[in-house]
């Protein structure tokens, strides 16, 4: 390859693709040809850099200059200034604090400073559609080391010693899981390794970013797992909603086959491994491991009772190891750098790092990887850059529909599996949603319960009926029809469901409700007793008023009101009869002068 004086990385993650990064790549190549520098400069389309909020993102090396919200119209100037004249284009360089300082290198950004990238090491660095780049970054040397120098038990011992725990939610020790499947016997010798890429948490995209940004690391790790347990066949179960991820993973599998890194007699050993993609079809419960296996088998994705455990009787009734994408994404680094190195990162019982998809009311929405033990405060204020529009932090939600809301008083909690459980939430797969004073905690609880209720597979009554009851109560509270005793009824139902539901979906569904009651009981009480929504979200609890000073008396609102609650004389201020108003909100939208408000 000819020497390249500069390298331009364009983010091809889903966030940036959505905001048009593929058009940038085309335009960029056109400009480079125009200036006749296409041979000196390499253009690489990568996976997500993490700062999706600022997309489309372009980084130019060797300087590491971080350009944000780049548009096609900017490309001509960008090429002329940065690449032809060698002057970074400060107009497009991201200024973190809005203080006019344009850091010349990505390493100066607070967003990246506190992070430590193990699972995401190649994301946003290499071109995921080119196996040679992965090889150039040490790819497939871990499987080589494993096959040529380690026994299956050596591999398992190494993973055990690293302290790696499952990143899909539960935090089960990965090495132990592999040991069980290794020790299990199969009559015909068939065993399976499965990757859970169903990523059901409705506000999270960690696994997708690994698939999109570094698919080969998953393939390599699954091959290592297969060797460790004595399997030669793997499946990756991916959410159907992830077209880019599926495409890149398929490309990676095909390339690995071409290079003999998948298939028969890998590295001329007698180890063979083949990998197949299976698509989900939109059922959250299929993220549960036994339901997922049913789904791969072409059945309804209902959970199976356990025992038997998948390690003994899993996919197609064979011993099976099933791990999450991010869990696998840590494997090659552990093999290459050693268990000790990995175990030196993190807390006593939670080793390594965790990837989070940070979203909601936060300045730097995106993907980040932090050492276990980092505090929530560091994530929200240092990496996340704080809350937009000067609003106050109210809560952070982790664990998705199985997790809980963490209040401001616990911002200094060090994030690890056990601490999160102790404060009524859980690690989950890594969704981290920040909420500010404008979010209503009762409404958030209702939102999650609406989700789990809808996704319950209906197999067992406590979950099917219990979540419905809880949702009815929450809806009633949000509509201002809550009655005394509703909080206690919710708590009672919750305990009943937790104790008797068959699978994790039901067992954890009440958590968002319990944790919001625990930390934000006053908000529930305001809804129930004062018929007020302090955050101003639940529209049935708000009063609608017309501002007499700005109302032009056009009467448009009165025509829109479905219950004739608005009246007035033309050209004079109108008014709303609160006794008639059903709080539908139509008038607010209709007023061309913004004269109607709710509070």
């Amino acid at each position: 390859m000819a020497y390249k004086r500069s390298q331009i990385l364009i983010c091809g993650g889903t966030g940036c693709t959505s905001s048009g990064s593929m058009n940038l790549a085309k335009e960029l190549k056109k400009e480079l040809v125009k200036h006749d520098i296409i041979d000196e400069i390499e253009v690489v389309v990568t996976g997500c850099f993490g700062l999706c909020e600022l997309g489309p993102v372009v980084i130019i090396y060797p300087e590491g200059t971080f350009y944000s919200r780049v548009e096609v119209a900017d490309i001509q100037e960008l090429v002329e200034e940065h690449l032809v004249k060698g002057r970074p284009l400060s107009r497009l360089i991201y200024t973190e604090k809005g203080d006019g300082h344009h850091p010349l290198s990505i390493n100066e950004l607070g967003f990246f400073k506190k992070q430590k990238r193990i699972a995401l090491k190649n994301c946003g660095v290499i071109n995921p559609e080119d196996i040679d780049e992965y090889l150039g970054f040490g790819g497939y040397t871990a499987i080589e080391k494993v096959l040529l120098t380690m026994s299956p038990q050596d591999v398992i011992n190494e993973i055990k010693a690293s302290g790696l725990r499952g990143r899909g939610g539960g935090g089960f020790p990965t090495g132990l899981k592999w040991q069980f499947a290794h020790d299990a016997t199969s009559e015909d010798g068939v065993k399976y390794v499965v990757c859970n890429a169903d990523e059901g948490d409705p506000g999270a995209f960690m696994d997708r970013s690994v698939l999109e940004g570094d698919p080969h690391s998953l393939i390599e790790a699954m091959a290592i797992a297969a060797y460790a347990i004595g399997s030669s066949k793997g499946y990756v179960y991916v959410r159907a909603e992830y077209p880019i991820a599926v495409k890149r993973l398929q490309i990676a599998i095909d390339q690995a086959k071409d290079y003999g890194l998948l298939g028969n007699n890998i590295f001329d050993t007698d180890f063979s491994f083949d990998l197949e993609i299976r698509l989900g079809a939109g059922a959250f419960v299929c993220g549960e491991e036994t339901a997922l296996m049913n789904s791969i088998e072409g059945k309804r994705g209902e959970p199976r009772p356990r025992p038997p455990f998948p390690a003994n009787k899993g996919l197609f009734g064979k011993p099976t190891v099933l791990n999450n994408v991010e869990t696998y994404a840590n494997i090659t680094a552990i093999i290459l750098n050693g268990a000790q190195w990995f175990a030196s990162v993190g807390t006593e019982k939670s080793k390594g790092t965790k990837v989070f998809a940070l979203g909601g009311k936060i300045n730097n929405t995106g993907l980040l990887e932090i050492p276990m033990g980092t505090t929530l405060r560091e994530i929200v204020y240092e990496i996340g850059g704080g809350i937009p529009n000067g609003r106050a932090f109210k809560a952070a939600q982790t664990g998705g529909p199985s997790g809980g809301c963490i209040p401001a008083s616990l911002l200094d909690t060090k994030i690890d599996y056990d601490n999160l459980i102790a404060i009524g939430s859980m690690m989950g797969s890594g969704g981290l949603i920040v909420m500010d004073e404008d979010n209503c905690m009762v409404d958030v609880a209702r939102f999650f319960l609406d989700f789990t209720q809808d996704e319950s597979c209906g197999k067992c009554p406590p979950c099917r009926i219990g979540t419905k009851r809880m949702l009815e109560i929450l809806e009633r509270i949000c509509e201002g029809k809550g009655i005394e005793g509703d909080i206690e009824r919710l708590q009672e139902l919750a305990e009943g469901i937790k104790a008797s539901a068959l699978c994790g979906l039901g067992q954890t569904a009440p958590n968002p409700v319990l944790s919001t009651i625990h930390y934000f009981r006053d908000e529930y009480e305001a809804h129930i007793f004062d018929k007020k929504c302090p955050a101003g979200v639940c529209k049935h609890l708000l009063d609608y008023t017309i501002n007499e000073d700005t109302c032009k008396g056009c009467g448009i609102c009165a025509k829109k009101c479905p219950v004739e609650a608005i009246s007035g004389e033309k050209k004079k201020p109108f008014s709303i009869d609160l006794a008639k108003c059903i709080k539908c909100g139509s008038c607010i939208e209709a007023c061309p002068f913004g004269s109607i408000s709710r509070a």
Partner: protein
Amino acid sequence: MAELIPVENLDVVKAIVAEHRNVPGCLMQILQETQNDYGYLPLELQRTIADELGIPLTEVYGVATFYSQFTLKPKGKYKIGVCLGTACYVRGSQPILEKVNNILGTVVGETTADGKWSVDATRCVGACGLAPVMMINDDVFGRLTVKEIPTILEKY
């Protein structure tokens, strides 16, 4: 978007079954490809799949109705998906969805009588940085405000 295959034409679904029938757990893949080609999974197609595979129709129906991606009714020419994932929800995607339904006179999960629109509430589409997000077929609209919705819909 590729032209959909009319339901009367059963050759395509038969070919799909023939291609996958020997793969363990093939029913999901068959349903997925069939829906891709025909746009939806009416009973006729499910019956053909059941007959070709030699399994009861109830089994096919049971799977087709379990997963939310499978639809037994045709979707609109323009499929709108408003993201109600957590990140979008806390940044106000519910009012966006209401606005869309308001303008089009639609209900979530249904298709307009003229077959032009269907509206769904989706889960995280992976563009949380752009929340709130809406998709119309393959086009993604991010950082939405309720005000922009009419102008966006007019373009279709």
